[in-house]
């Protein structure tokens, strides 16, 4: 583990006081390796290391008899801070909730839409699930089935090719059905596909969501910075949902995405079932990234 590696770096120091430049640079090299292995973006690692170096040259480490452990604590605390600090308890959303889900192909948007409907229902809201994915084969059937599993109303327009028309009609349907939340699922798209990025911006302008959630796969590597940045700049995300955290990827993408967008990670997908959505805990994520 990183802790063991750092203890090795500092093992000859005990009782001899001052840390050398070499101790610190060896420690930083181990930390860099661990974070890159965990898929944290190299720019984020660079920035992170400079913060850790600054803190490591401070009194706690210099005067410690276990400088290795002190550095591990600094790294862990700095990670927690960067990931958002205290875990935020998700409250029952008040008023009329309008959620728009966006993200790359296969990230888990449709499944997450079902999970959000389930979560809202458990929090005494009445959600409507809407499919605006007019592109993927059987996408609408997929969400319809999930809606049935959660027992919430579902809406789409079957032969409609234009997602904007579906989003507009969904608002009317919500009023008819007496729901107080609408979750709109969109087709996966690449941030470099200008036409599709324009399309989702137009859906946003029409639907006027109060939450735009970027669904990202926890196993994403360095590309996390590129896609998250592009979606945030074009569509404007209000929060992130990290999916497939039940895998064994270290999840460095969480740090990269938070760093580049500054937006909070609101939920974690921890399985394929519709009740497998939980709040995001920065300290748990920090431990996971550090391996």
């Amino acid at each position, binding site marked *: 583990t990183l802790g063991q590696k750092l203890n090795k770096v500092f093992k000859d120091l005990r009782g001899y006081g001052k840390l050398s430049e070499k101790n610190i640079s060896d420690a930083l090299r181990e930390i*860099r*390796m661990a974070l*890159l*292995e*965990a*898929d944290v*973006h*190299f720019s984020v690692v660079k920035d992170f290391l400079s913060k850790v170096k600054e803190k490591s040259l401070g009194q706690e480490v210099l005067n410690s008899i276990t400088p290795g452990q002190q550095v591990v604590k600094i790294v862990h605390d700095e990670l927690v801070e960067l990931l958002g600090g205290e875990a935020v308890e998700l409250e029952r959303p008040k008023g009329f909730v309008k959620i728009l889900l966006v993200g*790359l*192909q*296969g*990230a*888990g948007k449709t499944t997450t839409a079902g999970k959000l409907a389930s979560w809202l229902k458990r929090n005494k809201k009445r959600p409507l699930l809407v499919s605006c994915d007019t*592109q*993927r*084969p*059987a*996408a609408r*059937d*997929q*969400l*319809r*089935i*999930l809606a049935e*599993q959660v027992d919430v109303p579902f809406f789409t327009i079957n032969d409609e090719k234009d997602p904007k028309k579906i989003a507009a009609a969904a608002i009317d349907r919500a009023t008819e059905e007496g729901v107080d939340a609408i979750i709109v699922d969109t087709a996966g798209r*690449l*941030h*470099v596909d200008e036409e599709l990025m324009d399309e989702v911006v137009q859906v946003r302008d029409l639907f006027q969501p109060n939450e735009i959630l970027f669904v990202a*796969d926890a*196993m*994403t*590597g*360095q*590309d*996390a910075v*590129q*896609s998250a940045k592009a979606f945030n700049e074009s569509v404007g995300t209000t929060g992130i949902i990290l999916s*497939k955290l*039940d*895998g*064994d*990827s*270290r999840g*460095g*993408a969480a740090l990269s995405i938070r760093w580049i967008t500054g937006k909070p990670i609101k939920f974690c997908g921890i399985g*394929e079932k519709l009740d497998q959505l939980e709040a995001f805990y920065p300290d748990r994520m920090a431990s996971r990234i550090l391996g």
Partner: protein
Amino acid sequence: IFSGGGKIAPEDLDSIEEILLSADLGPSTVIPLIDHLRDNSPKGIEYNELLSYLEKEIESLFQQDRKSLIQNSAGPTVIMMVGVNGTGKTTTVAKLAQYYKQQGKSVMLASCDTFRAAATDQLQVWADRLGIEAIQQGAGADPAAVAFDALKAALSRGTDVLICDTAGRLHNKSNLMEELKKISRVLGKELEGAPHETLLVLDAVTGQNGFIQAEQFHKELNLSGVIVSKLDGTAKAGVVVSIEKDLQIPVKFVGVGESIDDFALFSPKEFVKELLE
């Protein structure tokens, strides 16, 4: 970053390191490579020389004798498509089916994802577009039973190729990996040597976990190849370098879009060129 044709400086090596890291080659591949270059390259090597040296160096890490897909001479060629959730398996099954059809082969699909909502509907849409049959059973059916039915049908009709789509699953879920092994065993019992190809579909955006995916799926199923999907994005899939080098599993195809034609044979040369872009 470089104006091209200039002399390489140590800080330029840092830029090259960043290019390789951002391509997901992974620090355990990149850092030693850069350190080696830093200590061994002649002072002020030409930038273009360094780049072509790097290209050759990385290309040499790929499997050298690359065979395309195995062909069974004694009955249908059976192919199993596997991988973690959402990587593009179902879409890739369709692309591979068209690839074979274009060679004049008869193709049948097996809808072994009996778990995920609308998985069989999704494969059926592709089968209809291709004008081929997708064997399926009801939701929640045993995937191995679907595979068995499909292989029986392919054998009786003399179909050239049978491609089995399977449900996405995380490699750290042992019960799901066991399910996949059972499908493989059932195919092998019914036709000796089946499945002739077990292909892992890997999403190009995957980071270092991609190596663990390949390692685990390979350990359980003995992979015959990898297909990298979504290379039309900005991710470079550099993790395949260590998959080829350390696991000796060849990348056979790449997916470069959502339509059925967005499919091509893998070329290490092209791939490495893109990597160093």
